[in-house]
């Protein structure tokens, strides 16, 4: 089993919370994991990326070689396109459609969406809207993880367990909310892939 995942977003959007859930899921299943993160200057509203690698064999490089990612999971539409050179010919792009506009020259959203729709394999999801419907706009990242889950070679239950152990100390209500968000994201992806 191997999953090479590029997580993309903007500094402050919390992409590492997604990585943390997958990290726990991987470790608790005795899988190997390497995860390169962006810290530092870019966290001030710049483009941030994390290379997340999960495998049942030891992993050498902390960085994913180009053309090898199974999945680009982006919490922002334009950012989903920035790392296309990493995507394997059979890989999926799963992206949130809500733009994060903090630069004056942000392109027209339609142009960005056209590029995404021209990709061979993608899921474009309004995670912010689905999160709101779930009951809390703050769980949009977990909605995104749910939407990406069909393309990650890990049992869905393991990801659910990851959520349980990450949110346990915040109480049962938070666990349930996040599980609901995860499932809502997955459902959307399965219906719109």
């Amino acid at each position, binding site marked *: 089993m191997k999953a090479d995942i590029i997580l993309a977003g*903007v*500094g402050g959007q919390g992409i590492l919370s997604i*990585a943390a859930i997958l*990290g*726990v899921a991987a*470790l608790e299943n005795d899988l*190997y*994991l*390497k*995860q*390169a*993160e*962006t*810290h*530092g*200057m*870019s*966290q*001030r*509203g*710049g*483009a941030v990326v994390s290379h997340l690698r999960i495998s049942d064999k*030891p*992993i*050498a*490089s*902390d*960085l*994913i*070689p*180009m*053309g*090898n*990612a199974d999945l680009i999971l982006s919490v922002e539409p*334009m*950012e989903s*396109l*920035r*790392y*296309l*050179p*990493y*995507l*394997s*010919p059979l*890989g999926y792009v799963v992206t949130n459609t809500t733009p994060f506009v*903090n*630069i*004056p*020259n*942000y*392109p027209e959203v339609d*142009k*960005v969406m056209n*590029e995404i729709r021209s*990709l061979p394999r993608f899921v474009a999801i309004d995670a912010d809207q689905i999160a709101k419907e779930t009951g809390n706009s703050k769980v949009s990242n977990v909605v995104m993880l749910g939407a990406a889950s069909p393309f990650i070679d890990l049992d869905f239950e393991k990801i659910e367990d990851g959520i349980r152990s990450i949110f346990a100390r915040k109480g049962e209500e938070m666990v349930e909310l996040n599980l609901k968000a995860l499932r809502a994201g997955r459902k959307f992806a399965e219906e719109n892939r």
Partner: protein
Amino acid sequence: MQKHLFLGVEAIGQGAIDGGMSGVYAYPGTPSTEITEFIQENELAEQRNIHRQWSANEKTAYEAALGMSYAGKRAMVCMKHVGLNVAADAFVNSAMTGINGGLIVTVADDPSMHSSQNEQDSRFYGRFAMVPVLEPSNQQEAYDMARNGFQLSEKAGVPVMLRITTRMAHSRAGIIRKDVLEENQLRLPHDPKQFILLPAIARRRYNLLLQSQDAFLQMSEESEYNKYLDGPDKSLGIVACGISFNYLMECFDGQCPYPVVKVSQYPLPAKMIKRLRLECNQLLVLEEGAPLVEEMLKGFFDESSIIKGRLDNTLPRAGELNPDLVAKALGLEVQSGMPVPEVVANRPPALCQGCGHQDVYRAMNEALAEYGRGRVFSDIGCYTLGALPPYETISTCVDMGASITMAKGAADAGLIPAVAVIGDSTFAHSGITGLLDAVNEKANMTIVISDNESVSMTGGQDSSAYGKIETICQGVGVDPAHIHVIIPLRKNHEEMVELFRKELAYEGISVIIPRRECIQRASRRKRNKA
């Protein structure tokens, strides 16, 4: 066995605690900051009351760590690569004094300059000071080196450098912890003169350091971190330093056909390298940072093109390595996915919405309009983003503290007005002595200490000048009539512009302190309270 999912920096923090460290000393700097933060939040560190407060700068941190070593205990000092420039005097001379308790200096380099002014390679400093250098290839080694580095330092009798790079610092992997070692007891140095570098003693110490070089080499040859890995294809031999070893293994799925010397401890294991040279037709050197090993192997006269690496463009001369660059250097095919579509715009970092530095720059720009551009010297921190649109207020960012001193030099040259913009932590780090120079010479300049009561660029650590800035300025000799505190808010804009105008026109030293807490820090504080 239980695995812990640790960033490289966290592995080092845990390793140091488990290695019996009694104190960590540091000034924040990406990518080294989280080592100290990890220790600050660690339960065992709290139980043991391990020293873990921030220091004012890297030099004070280094010297305090050396003092703890003098007293017989184990200490680690952490910094980013440019921090070692600040601490270099202490570092180089501590190789002369040697240590008592084990001392590790952990230095985090930033090739490709993700968050730094340059990409200097700290291994040069290690070689310069003639001490052993450790360079982990993975997080487990990072843990092991931090844990066992104190013993290595005690055995070698000198500080040991632990050199990491951004990728190692900020990449996570499962690591296995080992037993927790006891701390050392308080114990004065055996030789009461060891730490007195008067020439007569210093010469003796230097001879000892020179004589120790053979022993350090022997330690490298026998180090568990250095390995000769044979391979069937002798057309090429590879020297893979630190994390580059992983990129090499990635290219061959863990089965490299060429002989490899994996280097994770310096001085270079000469015997292994010589064997590689004897057995292989060509050598490829993979190293993160500068071509230090490559230059050593090539020397001055070798034009045989046997040695490949960054100097002959087999690899790029600058920037960090990755599996694709290494694959290309090995003549392997690199598969790239689709190109980045043209609509994708750059997204550089920016000041946060509502940040006080923004109000400062808006007011300064208005007040400075009548003088023209090019008169504002600045420094390193979030406020450096004032160099970018829409502000473009500042003209310099060189090294911590350089705003005040460069403005003074420009004022000496006759530039009017000469303005410095510096953050509160940078002021504490290296601004105060420059201000003293300016006061002593009655320089004509305006100093803006943009005080967000936090070391924000590195994640909001406590600033060591908190609550003391006006007192420091007065103590250094600035006229209290020209020290002003103002709250940088949009509603105070006119008042700020007026104040800047007045003080820019004043012939002498003025200090303006716009003070409002960093909004990130404020919201973190509120969250933690809730």
